């Protein structure tokens, strides 16, 4: 066989393999989506979205999951806000204040990579220890703090990789005009990277809102609607967990419905924040 033929076969074979792999990824996503929609959609009704669970328990199967919807939204928004407050400045600091191959920056990045790999149940346990230390009971606030820790690594690293792509010239120009690094970071670099930073924040939110293990000890559970930072809240992931764990098919279906609701909540928050911030994107240099 001539060399040309071999190369063409190689090219085609690789193409087929890649097509298969990509199709598999999309397929897995579609199957999951379909499962949740098919199993969850029949249970989706207004009562589910607007009521608390009947007689204070998911196992009874009546009422709705409003307590968990509100709890998850409050918890995730609070945690994402807190994580963003820490993570975005850290990412800006690494990229604007430190040099490219700074050891300190490498250390920070490495720490976040390690934190990223830690399972969420460990964050839950860690949050629990802190709660005991401060004599706190499980509450919305404890949940927010724990989830913020959970979101921090992924959010910071995502923002970091976006900021790394901002051209160095932009930083040079701002500094050459006599701007401080602070002004450069927040007035120029942040603006330029804003759409990417928003994505980083949403990635963090996605991780935070869907996590069950970290909130189990820290946010606790309640059937009432969240009213105070210092009282326990219900969350959607735990609602899914408890309901799918029951032996009753009817309640299990409500578990799938809760999963569907969780997905819709994430979708809604993503779309809403994209629309809200669309006008900022016009100012980005391409």
């Amino acid at each position, binding site marked *: 066989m001539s060399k040309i033929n071999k190369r063409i076969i190689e090219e085609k074979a690789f193409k087929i393999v890649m097509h298969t792999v990509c199709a598999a990824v999309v397929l897995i996503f579609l199957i999951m989506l379909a499962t949740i929609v098919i199993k969850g959609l029949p249970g989706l009704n207004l009562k589910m979205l607007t009521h608390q669970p009947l007689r204070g328990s998911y196992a009874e199967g009546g009422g709705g999951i409003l307590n968990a919807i509100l709890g998850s939204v409050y918890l995730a928004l609070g945690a994402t806000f807190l994580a963003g407050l820490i993570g975005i400045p850290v990412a800006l600091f690494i990229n604007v204040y430190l*040099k*490219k*191959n*700074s050891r300190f920056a490498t250390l920070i990045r490495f720490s976040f990579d390690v934190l990223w790999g830690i399972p969420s149940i460990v964050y839950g346990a860690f949050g629990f220890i802190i709660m005991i230390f401060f004599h706190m009971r499980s509450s919305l606030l404890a949940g927010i703090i724990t989830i913020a820790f959970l979101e921090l690594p992924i959010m910071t690293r995502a923002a970091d990789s976006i900021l790394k792509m901002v*051209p*160095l*010239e*932009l*930083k*040079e*120009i*701002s*500094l*050459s*005009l*006599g*701007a*401080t690094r602070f*002004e450069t970071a927040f*007035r*120029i670099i942040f*603006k*330029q990277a804003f759409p990417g930073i928003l994505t980083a924040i949403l990635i963090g939110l996605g991780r935070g809102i869907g996590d069950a293990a970290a909130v189990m000890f820290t946010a606790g559970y309640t059937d009432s609607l969240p009213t105070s930072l210092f009282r326990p809240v219900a969350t959607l992931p735990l609602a899914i967990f408890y309901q799918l764990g029951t032996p009753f098919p009817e309640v299990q279906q409500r578990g799938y419905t809760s999963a569907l609701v969780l997905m819709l909540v994430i979708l809604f928050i993503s779309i809403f924040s994209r629309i809200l911030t669309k006008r900022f994107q*016009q*100012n*980005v*240099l*391409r």
Partner: protein
Amino acid sequence: MNNPIRTNLLSVSYGQHQALNDVSIEIPARKITAIIGPSGCGKSTLLKVFNRLLELNDDIIISGEVFVDGQDIYDKGVDVYSLRKKMGLLPQKPFPLPMSIFENVAYGLKIHNHLGKGKLEGLVEHYLKEASLWDEVKDRLHAHAAKLSIGQQQRLCLARGLAIEPEIILGDEPTSALDPFSAERIERKLIELKKRYTIVVVTHNIQQAIRLADYVVFLYYGKVVEADTADKVFKSPQSLMTQAYIKGEFLDEVWFDKEARLINKVAQGEGI
């Protein structure tokens, strides 16, 4: 003569690579000084030493002295922000800041002064006129700067640089990304501006240097080969290397072919 920039035995290295080697030059006030030489010979490095942007790079070692207005800018306790404010930078590729045309010019003004809205608008107009851009953008001041043509963008960069009221304008091959017409406009502007500003332009375009420069520094592999008035450098260059470079001969070839003669010359005390 009062020279706003002076270097004394300035050496710069990036890790192992020595970019500048014992550079001692003076940049005269209110003249255009062209730093010429082939790519990678340290021209831009020299420019970035002046406004201390070089420190953004990794593993930089700077030795020697650089004086701006008589002050050693690498002294401890130098206010690097007011140093940079003294110098407007015209970058190699026009890089508008991610904001509107108006905001691009206003950025420097806002950083350094507290201005009312009316005053700010007046100043932005003034500097856009100064960069001959006003007539083209006055109806769309709040459009995004990236929507301008590349030549307009470079004039915007000029306006932005002038707005911080510098004494010195640094141009890092400011026309290399532009079409000939836009390049000519920038060149004309620079000649006009030298009445009021000290201008340093890095260029590898000899024709441009001949058109613009009053004073020329020829750098080759980090060393100053020749630094004198444009007349002297272009009409009666002292060094063979400068002669060859101006004529457009290949330097390496010249170096090897004429090495013997060059060494002879040095031996006879004529210097490089």
